[in-house]
């Protein structure tokens, strides 16, 4: 064990989060930090080609190489009767037409369909031996042409990825009221169109994807360590793939180094490492390298949104139409289809009251890494598209962009508001939020700042965006937590949603402290094998705080209810006469009281039996609608094309905020991931399907200083969809920053005649556009 902390560490001041001490002292435990006696090491053999027919895979030299313990090819996968990876949420058109699915095989068989696709796994006594042996694989692959974008995938003479999918089209999804929308466009005074790309991104959480499995043959039980977003998602996928029952698998992740959507389910490597551990009878560890996970972690975004808006003479929006394209990559995996159909449609009216909506979306296959969820999973993309389109329409037809928004906002008295695209917005104060953002950002005096910048030969721009998103409804009908008191009087809360940086231990603890008065030191949150009997959603879709957090709130209510009886017993009074305040039960009439703390101690069983205050909390919480108004201000140096963010204001309605500092942290992180997409990041494939941006050297990440300051404020509009009144925060930052930043950049460039540009706004792109 690596205990190098001084035994008597003096903490001058309190630390912010319960998680922090271990993480700032190097005592955190991520998957690659686990070590077991006799552990061996796996290395993946991946396809070097984007598209090809596998003629022959010869691994006999690999099997005979120094230190090699096991080589797994598709033959071993078939022998183990493993299934494909799950396609995840699939879609159907209202006329019943189903989607062409293409689930990804654990290891390539017959064909390879993207660079990085797993072909074989080599396991050896050391990582070095596994790597060296993998060099001896003889691969004979007949290369085929590759398709890497919409144009090449759907061209009449395009090669087909999957024999059963004509034209590489998985489905042409449609939704909304086409007739009403067509009518709105016929009646419109003004119409604007805009094609908006949300480019393919690589999620890049800092902890590399990894998995360590050990197998206990005596109990036929598998234990895996792996970063995940909640063990139930991982368990469900593993059961489906491997056939091993959930109760024979334990998933452990003490610390997870970021997730952002990509860790919601199992990958090939999870299934293969489990198989290897069973075959060899020793623990097996696989840790991806960064270059490797660039071509094998699910990619994100990869959407094209073509929006058209119809306005009447005064600027009232009559109708909105989207014609979208969603690149699924080579296979249907997890959330790709859900994003390209459902998530980009359910809030497609944004914060506006629009009577007629319709959308179509083509979901197609390419020879690229499969696409799944990345921070927001379609929500930021559609928010981005709407807010760019509104700005565009305002400029094109001479409307004031603030007045145009104000006129079209859904008014507070219109809630609940059914947009007839699958969402019923429950609450929001859009005008109030915009007003505050305008105030804080000094929006109305912008032109003088623009003039001042112009005097210094700089182009200054301001961008405003109002957005809304639909947070996750959950994968189970309720979330449960189990509360049990340890012999030291610590309330241990077991749940299924594990954190990957959000700070669950701290915020769930805060809910308990607020409700019961118990000190943070006396509360412990654990997501792991002990919670397996519980149900609940994972960490995703901005959901954990109001999902599992509401279950924690319900747990507290039950503990208090039970403690009331114990207090009455202790004080020998009627329970009905007691009231709870500041962590104690009081009987005002007699000036008597007893603290919850004392009751916990007094009723502590002497044997191993359960504490009478132990309870199971649960709550059903539906989707919420976090929303906000973000305003960004940028300055461009026309000599270099470099764009600097000089001001950023984020006014967010997240419902009831439990941990303000942590919530702001989520906003900051989301905003800067938006900055990453707006200014730096883009996964680029060449025509042959090779990923040109294959490492942090070619894929630019946002770094320190890309944003020096941010003004973040919350306006709490309480939701009734969960007992905490909270709306979720994880994805808001991104949804606000993409349109605010883009509108600011275009605002700076518009005086130079530039009305449109696709992200990322790199210096060469801006410079080139300025050259005309």
């Amino acid at each position, binding site marked *: 064990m690596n205990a190098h902390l*001084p035994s008597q560490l003096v903490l001058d001041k309190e630390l*912010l*989060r319960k998680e922090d001490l271990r993480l700032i002292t190097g005592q955190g435990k*991520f998957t690659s930090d686990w070590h077991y006696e006799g552990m061996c090491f796996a290395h993946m053999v991946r396809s070097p080609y984007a598209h090809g027919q596998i003629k022959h895979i010869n691994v006999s030299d690999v099997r005979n190489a120094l230190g090699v313990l096991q080589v797994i090819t598709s033959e071993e996968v078939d022998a183990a009767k493993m299934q494909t990876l799950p396609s995840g949420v699939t879609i159907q058109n209202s006329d019943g037409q189903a989607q062409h699915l293409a689930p990804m095989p654990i290891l390539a068989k017959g064909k390879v369909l993207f660079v990085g696709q797993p072909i074989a796994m080599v396991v050896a006594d050391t990582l070095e031996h596994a790597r060296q042996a993998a060099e001896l694989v003889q691969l004979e692959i007949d290369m085929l042409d590759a398709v890497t974008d919409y144009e090449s995938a759907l061209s009449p003479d395009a090669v087909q990825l999957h024999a059963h999918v004509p034209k590489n089209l998985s489905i042409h999804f449609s939704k909304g009221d086409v007739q009403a929308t067509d009518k709105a466009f016929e009646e419109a005074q003004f119409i604007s169109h805009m094609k908006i790309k949300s480019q393919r991104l690589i999620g890049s959480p800092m902890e*590399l994807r990894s998995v360590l499995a050990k197998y206990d043959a005596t109990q036929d039980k598998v234990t895996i360590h792996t970063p995940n977003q909640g063990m139930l998602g991982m368990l469900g996928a593993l059961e489906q793939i491997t056939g091993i029952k959930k109760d024979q698998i334990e998933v452990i992740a003490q610390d997870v180094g970021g997730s952002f959507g990509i860790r919601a389910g199992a990958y090939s490597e999870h299934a293969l490492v489990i198989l290897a551990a069973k075959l060899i009878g020793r623990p097996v560890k696989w840790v991806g390298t960064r270059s490797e996970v660039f071509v094998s972690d699910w990619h994100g975004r990869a959407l094209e949104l073509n929006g058209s808006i119809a306005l009447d003479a005064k600027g009232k929006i009559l109708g909105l139409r989207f014609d979208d394209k969603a690149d699924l990559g080579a296979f249907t995996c997890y959330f790709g289809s859900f994003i390209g159909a459902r998530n980009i449609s359910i809030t497609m009216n944004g914060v506006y009251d629009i009577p007629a909506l319709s959308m179509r979306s083509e979901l197609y296959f390419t020879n690229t890494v499969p696409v799944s969820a990345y921070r927001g999973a379609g929500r930021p993309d559609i928010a981005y598209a709407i807010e760019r389109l509104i700005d565009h329409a305002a400029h094109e037809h001479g409307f004031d962009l603030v007045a145009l928004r104000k006129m079209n906002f859904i008014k507070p008295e219109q809630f609940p508001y059914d947009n007839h695209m699958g969402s019923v917005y429950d609450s929001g104060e859009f005008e109030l939020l915009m007003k505050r953002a305008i105030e804080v950002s000094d929006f109305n005096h912008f032109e003088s700042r623009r003039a001042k910048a112009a005097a210094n030969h700089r182009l200054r721009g301001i961008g405003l965006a109002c957005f809304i998103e639909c947070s996750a409804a959950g994968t189970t009908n309720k979330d449960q937590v189990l509360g049990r008191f340890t012999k030291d009087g610590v309330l241990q809360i077991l749940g299924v949603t594990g954190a990957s940086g959000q700070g669950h231990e701290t915020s769930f603890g805060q809910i308990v402290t607020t409700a019961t008065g118990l000190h943070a030191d006396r509360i412990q949150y654990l997501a792991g094998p002990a919670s397996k009997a519980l149900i609940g959603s994972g960490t995703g879709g901005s959901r954990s705080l109001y999902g599992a957090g509401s279950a924690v709130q319900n747990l507290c209510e039950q503990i208090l209810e039970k403690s009331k009886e114990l207090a009455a017993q202790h004080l020998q009074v009627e329970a009905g006469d007691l009231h709870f305040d500041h962590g104690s039960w009081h009987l005002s009439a007699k000036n008597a009281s007893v603290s919850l703390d004392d009751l916990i101690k007094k009723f502590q069983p002497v044997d191993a039996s359960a504490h009478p205050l132990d309870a199971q909390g649960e709550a059903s919480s539906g989707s919420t609608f976090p929303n906000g108004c973000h305003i960004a201000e940028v300055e461009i140096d026309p000599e270099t094309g470099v764009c600097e963010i000089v001001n950023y204001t984020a006014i967010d309605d997240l419902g009831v905020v439990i941990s303000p500092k942590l919530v702001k942290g989520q906003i900051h992180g989301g905003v800067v*991931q938006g900055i990453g997409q707006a200014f730096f990041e883009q996964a680029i494939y060449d025509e042959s399907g090779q990923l040109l941006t294959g490492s942090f050297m070619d894929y630019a990440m946002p*770094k*320190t200083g890309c944003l*020096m300051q941010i003004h973040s404020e919350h306006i709490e509009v309480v939701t009734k969809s969960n007992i905490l009144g909270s709306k979720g925060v994880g994805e808001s930052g991104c949804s606000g920053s993409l349109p605010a930043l883009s509108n600011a950049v275009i605002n700076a460039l518009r005086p130079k005649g530039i009305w449109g540009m696709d992200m990322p706004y790199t210096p060469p792109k801006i410079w080139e556009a300025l050259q005309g």
Partner: protein
Amino acid sequence: MQMTINGVVQEFQVDDQTLLVEVLRDHFHLTGTHIGCDTSQCGCCTVLMNNEAVKSCTMLAAQATDSQIVTIEGLASDGLHPVQEAFSQEHGLQCGYCTPGMIMSTVHLLNRHPNPSDDQIKEGLAGNICRCTGYVNIIAAVKSAAKKIQEKTV
């Protein structure tokens, strides 16, 4: 091979190709030093060598012979280092994976510039990537740590 790791003189044998980060993580189980990339970009593996921040994934162990190495595990002495404290208090970390490297780079930055300007902070942390925090709170942590250190030395 000999080097001082967190104040303790260590003698050990590794082959020529072994990286410093492998010695720390695999040989001494100092797993607070992380690996986040393979191109020296992310800085998760940053440690101090003779008081200078270095990327331990980009150095052979042999290059660190006879040097003084401090890892995140060796930073706290009679209490948390002010940089550690500041990162927590300013919420300069979320998942914590990049944090050890960020903290070690900040320690080196503040050794060079006790009262760093914004540009010096940008330059000092240019080799460290964080995907969670958005950096704004990391910048706040660096400034707060600088203040703490100055108050201590006065």
